[in-house]
């Protein structure tokens, strides 16, 4: 009996674990190491952040699901990977540190035959002084951050109800952030809630981000056909911001978040400030800081991980300028080139480079989005990797046969702009491929037939349905495989 160990039970890890167990049945073991006892449907955290959902509605306990499906569960965090075993035993293993109440802090080793790293991001609030819920700004990256943000927003609304004028700043908290889509959703949900609570006129709302232009979203934006034109997402995004009375600051690297002032550097190298009463700024992401050691105990972290802390897989990591970037730089199988039994999926794999064009100001500060790895592609790559690994475990193949390159994959994405069954809206986007391919589609980098965007109530209905569908699926309820990634 072989053992597949999956590090991280988030969107990618859970998808990989459920598919792998379904295919392997009782013949091989699937073991998940993840520090949380609750699973979180992260996309709905933005609704927790404005108080329209409670943390219990976006989470569920993992243990019963793993028990039901026969997956071994370690409530622990991985600390190091030993792909060659140690001096006494060549069996690869990971060192884990327990996080459950009963075993907190205890360390042990877990051997593996195959390893999937799905540890997602470290929320790197430390990159910017004053950033994050422990300091001066809010976050919606976890459900408890979002609940904290909701409480602060309630207090702000109460003050506005007493006639006070307030400034709200939402966006990215560092020049290298990704996940602009999540901040965009929070921005418009806050704006919507303020209108519902009849205090909108007492609020100045400002967007601040590291995007070159609005509508970049870390994917260089996208072109769609609309009204007889082929139009960049910048046009639609600026339109929405104007319609909803939101001012915007782009090309900004937030340097420091003070008690009531944000200090940022722009692409010209100028330092500027923006005052705030409430700020929700996303942190930049890094790898979770796993270490790696060879059999002699020598540190081989740089063999397994990029400088960012994300795991190296089968991408082309040769540094090259934007003009030389190719779709083929993007990984296909997510297999580590040196240790063929190690894979990384979701946010945990190291992208070969950004998707948006790199911009650096005269002071040398990079101000451009890191590439997003949203839920749908994370799920798709996790499923493909799980299928490849289970084939290899069952002796059906010696190499991974299925591919899931972001340069050959499309994505559907729904960004909420206000949550209400009758008058809520969301932006529904599809794009193909995720990474633009200017060789195949010279004008826009994407196939216009499959690239679209529109805002409306229908998008909100779909986003709400997906909330239930993905929670249903992650709980491995009957027919869970009918819900696509």
């Amino acid at each position, binding site marked *: 009996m072989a053992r597949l160990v999956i590090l991280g039970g988030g969107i990618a890890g859970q998808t990989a674990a459920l598919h792998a167990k379904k295919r392997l049945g009782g013949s091989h073991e699937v073991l998940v190491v993840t520090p949380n006892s609750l699973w979180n449907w992260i996309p709905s955290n933005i609704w927790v952040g404005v108080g329209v959902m409670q943390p219990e509605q976006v989470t569920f306990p993992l243990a019963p699901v793993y028990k039901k499906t026969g997956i071994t569960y370690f409530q622990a965090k991985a600390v190091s990977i030993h792909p060659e075993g140690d001096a006494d035993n060549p069996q690869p293993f990971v060192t884990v540190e327990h996080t459950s109440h009963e075993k907190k802090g205890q360390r042990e080793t877990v051997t593996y035959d195959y390893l999937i790293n799905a540890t997602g991001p470290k929320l790197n609030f430390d990159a910017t002084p004053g950033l994050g819920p422990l300091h001066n700004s809010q976050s919606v990256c976890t459900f408890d951050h979002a609940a904290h943000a909701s409480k602060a927003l309630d207090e702000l609304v109460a003050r506005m109800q007493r006639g006070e004028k307030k400034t709200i700043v939402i966006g990215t908290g560092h020049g290298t952030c990704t996940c602009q889509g999540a901040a965009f959703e929070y921005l418009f949900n806050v*704006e*919507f809630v*303020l*209108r*519902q609570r*009849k*205090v*909108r*006129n007492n609020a100045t709302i400002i967007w601040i981000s590291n995007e070159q232009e609005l509508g970049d979203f870390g994917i260089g934006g996208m072109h769609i056909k609309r009204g007889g034109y082929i139009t960049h997402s910048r*046009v639609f995004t*600026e*339109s929405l*911001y*104007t*319609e*909803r*009375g939101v*001012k*915007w600051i782009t090309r900004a690297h937030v340097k420091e978040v003070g008690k009531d002032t944000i200090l940022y550097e722009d692409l010209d190298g100028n330092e500027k400030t923006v005052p705030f009463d409430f700020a929700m700024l996303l942190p930049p992401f890094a790898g979770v800081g796993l270490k790696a050691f060879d059999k002699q105990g020598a540190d081989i972290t740089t063999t397994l991980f990029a400088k960012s802390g994300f795991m190296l897989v089968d991408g082309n990591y040769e540094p090259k300028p934007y003009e030389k970037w190719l779709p083929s730089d993007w990984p296909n199988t997510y297999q580590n080139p040196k240790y063929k039994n190690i894979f990384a999926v979701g946010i945990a794999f190291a992208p070969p480079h950004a998707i948006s064009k790199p911009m650096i100001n005269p002071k040398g500060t990079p101000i451009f989005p890191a590439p997003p790895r949203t839920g749908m592609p994370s799920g*798709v790559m996790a499923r493909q990797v799980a299928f490849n690994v289970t084939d290899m475990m069952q002796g059906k193949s010696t190499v991974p046969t299925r591919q*899931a390159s972001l340069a050959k*994959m*499309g*994505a*559907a994405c729904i960004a909420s702009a206000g949550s209400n069954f*009758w*008058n809520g*809206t969301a932006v*529904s986007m*599809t794009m*193909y491929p995720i990474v633009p391919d200017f060789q195949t589609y010279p004008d826009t980098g994407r196939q216009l037939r*499959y690239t*679209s965007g*529109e*805002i*409306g*109530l*229908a*998008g909100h*209905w*779909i986003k709400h349905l997906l909330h239930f569908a993905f929670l249903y699926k992650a709980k491995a309820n009957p027919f869970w495989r009918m819900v*696509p*990634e």
Partner: protein
Amino acid sequence: MTEQPQPERQPYEQSFYPAVPTRFTKAMRTNLLWQFFRFVILNIKMLRMVRKH
């Protein structure tokens, strides 16, 4: 009824230049019949995207 944001469009300001939707366009975004139709279309579009993997 929800409160509407105050129009902030001033000449030569940031918000002076973008296209803004007409009342009709905005109304269609929450028109139940039209949105039900868009709901069906959007689901087809998304399923088409899912099938492409």
